[in-house]
């Protein structure tokens, strides 16, 4: 009960208000200092976290850019000592292997993700768990797996075997990203479709998938970025090839593998080419990552 007095000392609420405001304004200076210290710590940690990233990018650009000449992009790798070698065969090989991997894994990943998003049963949780474990499996293990399952069975190293191993890396990434994107679609849209008499599959195809599309594209691009940078799965599967090979059933060259094999050579020409390849691969992955963000941001904006 408040009294109708104007003397604040008689009114418990007014006197408490005065006391609280006194403490608050007395402590505001101290709180501002703490706040500044906190912000400074955040900035410091941000800088520390960014230093290695920027150092890697800067160093790779500095070392790799001199290797970028017309021969680098148009010539196949030449044996040590012969000038004007390039990485054209590895660039083509990477494009083919990654294209095959994407073409095969996107349907598996997206449809699998759709299943995970729609179902909460024991099969779904087992698959989800398996996908999470698979994401964490060392890629060298995936390489050996590809060697045993594909190379041993077919009897030769090949681009297909590489695509198979890269695909194993990519599927769980796409699947989980697709699941997240599809789960993000509001249930009421799904129900609105059902309430119009549509079948589950129709609603998924006509309503849910289009709404989730930005997330799906982001997931696929990130998976490609992940797969394109992997070296270990390729070592045991595509073998490497100094010549141009566009037939994926034959041993091929690929960027990560070329970087791996040439960087440990004692010849300056080859090490130089490896740096150029590292820069190219880094740029491609950077562009894929930035592109993934742009695509999803743009589609989301258009939708509004």
């Amino acid at each position, binding site marked *: 009960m408040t009294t109708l007095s104007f003397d604040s000392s008689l009114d418990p609420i007014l006197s*408490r208000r005065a006391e609280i405001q006194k403490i*608050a304004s007395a402590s505001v200076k101290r*709180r501002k200092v703490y706040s500044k210290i906190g912000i400074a710590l955040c900035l410091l940690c941000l800088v520390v976290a960014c230093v290695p990233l920027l150092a890697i990018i800067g160093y790779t650009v500095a070392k790799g850019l001199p290797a970028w000449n017309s021969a680098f992009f148009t010539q196949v790798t030449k044996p040590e000592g012969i000038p004007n070698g390039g990485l054209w065969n590895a660039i083509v090989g990477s494009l083919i292997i990654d294209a095959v991997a994407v073409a095969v894994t996107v349907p598996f990943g997206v449809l699998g993700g759709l299943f995970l998003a729609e179902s909460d049963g024991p099969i779904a949780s087992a698959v989800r768990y398996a996908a999470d474990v698979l994401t964490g499996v060392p890629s060298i293990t995936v390489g050996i797996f590809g060697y045993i399952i594909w190379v041993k069975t077919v009897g030769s190293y090949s681009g297909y075997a590489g695509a198979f191993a890269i695909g194993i890396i990519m599927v769980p990434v796409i699947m989980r990203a697709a699941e997240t994107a599809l789960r993000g679609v509001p249930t009421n849209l799904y129900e609105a479709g059902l309430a119009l008499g549509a079948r589950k599959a129709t609603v998924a195809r006509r309503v849910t998938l289009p709404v989730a599309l930005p997330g799906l594209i982001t997931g696929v691009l990130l998976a490609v970025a992940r797969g394109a940078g992997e070296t270990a799965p390729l070592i045991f599967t595509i073998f490497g090839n100094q010549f141009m090979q566009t037939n994926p059933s034959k041993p091929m060259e690929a960027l990560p593998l070329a970087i791996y094999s040439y960087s440990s050579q004692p010849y300056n020409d080859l090490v130089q080419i490896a740096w150029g390849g590292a820069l190219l691969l880094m740029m491609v992955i950077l562009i894929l990552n930035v592109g993934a963000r742009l695509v999803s941001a743009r589609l989301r904006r258009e939708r509004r």
Partner: protein
Amino acid sequence: MSTPSDFTQTIGLTTQEVFVTQEPGSTKVMRLEDVTVTFRGRPAVRGVTFDAYEKEVTALIGPSGSGKTTLLRALNRMHDTERSARVTGRIMLGDTSVNDKSTDPTLLRSRVGMVFQRPNPFPTMSIYDNAVAGLRFNGVRKKSLLDEAAESSLVAAALWDSVRERLKVSASTLSGGEQQRLCIARALAVEPEVLLMDEPTSALDPIATKRIEELIGELKDRVTIIIVTHNMQQAMRVSDRCAFLLMAEDRSGELIEYAPTSKLFSEPDDPRTLDYVHGRFG
């Protein structure tokens, strides 16, 4: 709807001076003069002028898009958190200019509390810790003051009797209505001069809504209340004065009429107000 009254309401100040003479002795706690809030240069609510009086409940009503919530959030500098937002005009809390650069927003907000649409007690804190959270944030450590404020605010929020035995229990065990009353207690514990309420019952069932409305009536002796509501019956039940906002043709909200609630609902000056309170649109 005579011409002179139309005239008085077009120039806000004159209208308010009429009210002051109608109710002598009531103190203006918050004064708004030509307040405009813009987002990315586009005004969301524009040119609002009115005063909120001590020991009164002022309701902001109007259809969606009329800028009620936007206006409310300008009153305790909540738009500071939105980079694209700009508030112009004068907002006075007593002698303090709310929007002035030299006014510390944290100190201001300890004087102008806020309750949100959805109950938002801090989920990791107990009921007691929630109630005194604002005090602790403001540097209060004295146990006696914390205990006193917790009890006083929980009593004022009509929650004390049901929670006094379980003050150390997590706040998320409370029902939605109780959580909202805890949020009111949390805001009251700092002993603000003004309490802003942004559709505080829109997420609650009718019974919980009724309790909050009763509470608002009991609280106005302690704190000046400015409440946004989309529910006209609620405005009629709880408020002493009403500000009616409407979206203009350029899609920014503007104040159509500000009057004592009884007048605004029975014989408003503006035909648009009459149409709205009679439910002909909105």
